[in-house]
Every structure is written in structure tokens, then in C-alpha cells.
């Protein structure tokens, strides 16, 4: 098996490598997308359903 150090670049600081290895399991992480989303699909005023798929997200049916 290859030495684990081969995984890292030669010029990577040893302190950084040690920090990566020493980090606790289960890091607290922050998502880049929401964990919960709410959408509203309503027809615009009039007969047609306008932009039903995207631009009506979160918009009221009629103002």
C-alpha cells in the first residue's frame, strides 16, 4: 500500500496536513442550499397559468 503521505502535495505545509488529520469526526458544517424550502404555484390574474414553473415561485396569485 502506498504511503499515506503520497496523497498530499510535496509543498503542502506539514502543519496543514497534521491539522487535517487531527480534525474531529463529524465536523459542524453549513449547507450551501436550504434544508427547507416553500414554494407557491398560483395562476396569474386572468385565464392563463403564466410562468407556472419558475417565475411564480413565492409570488401571490394576484396583487
Amino acid at each position, binding site marked *: 500500500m502506498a504511503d499515506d503521505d503520497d496523497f498530499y502535495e510535496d509543498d503542502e505545509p506539514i502543519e496543514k496536513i497534521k491539522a487535517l488529520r487531527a480534525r474531529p469526526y463529524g465536523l*459542524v*458544517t453549513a449547507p450551501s442550499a436550504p*434544508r427547507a424550502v416553500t*414554494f407557491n404555484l398560483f395562476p396569474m390574474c386572468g385565464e392563463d397559468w403564466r410562468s407556472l414553473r419558475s417565475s411564480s415561485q413565492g409570488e401571490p396569485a394576484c396583487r
Partner: protein
Amino acid sequence: MPLVHPKIGFKLILCDAAQADPTTGKLHMLGAGWTVVGTPTPPHAVALMVQVPWDRANERLPVRVELLTGDGHPVLLPGPTAPQPVLQEAELEVGRPVGVAKGSTLAAAFALNIGPLPLPVGRYEWRAKVAEDEHSEFFQVMGQASGLPVSL
């Protein structure tokens, strides 16, 4: 990245109204569990309670919710230029909160509120897909407007 992704679990619930809370991951619902409505349908909502395995935290999970006919074809409603499907797509992602035990299941939520739909009488399906997992919930549209969803 594991070779086999732990499965995303979720429940699809039809209700009168729903709101997903991005702070807590909770799903707030009113009037859940109906299966029969009149036409045009009253405002209603599709709610997804998503259970994300620990190992799939910090992964963007694609969500797709679509209204289909009873035989699985997309429901098309009149649009400005052409008929359009009734669907919504999104992405969910959960992080690992402080203090949560390793291996815990993490909550996420999705809510789609829909205005009245001029659906012909028949059987319909709300189909949802979260990552590779898919669930459906069927409902029946009766011949006359009932005002509110009813359970028979």
C-alpha cells in the same frame, strides 16, 4: 465518497397548506391526509418530510414534484404560449448541527402550495423524487366543487 449512497427517506403528504421552516427543518401542515376533492380543486399543498442520512449531509439533493394523471402522464394546463406541466424543482441540503451525535438522521423539508386547478374528473398522482428515492400519493377529483378537500 462511499460507493453506495445511503438511501434518502421521505414521506409525501397531501394537505390543505404547508410551510417548510428552513431554521429547524420542521414542516408545518394544515388539513393533512385528504384523498378526494371537487373540481376546480381548492388550494392545496404537497409536503415532503425528508430524512437525510448522516453520510449524505452537505450534499445537494435534487427535488422534483410533479402532478400526473392516473395513468402517469403529466397534467398540462393552459399557459401563455403552450400547455405547461404542473411541477416544481428545487435542491435541499442539510448540514451537521453542533452537538448532534454521529450517525444521526437529519431533517429537511419541502412544501409546495398550489392554487385551484381546473382538473377534469378522474384520478391523479402527485409524484415526488428526492435524489434517487421516489414516492407518489394519489387523489380523486369528483364531479362538483366541494369547497374544501373532503375525505370519504
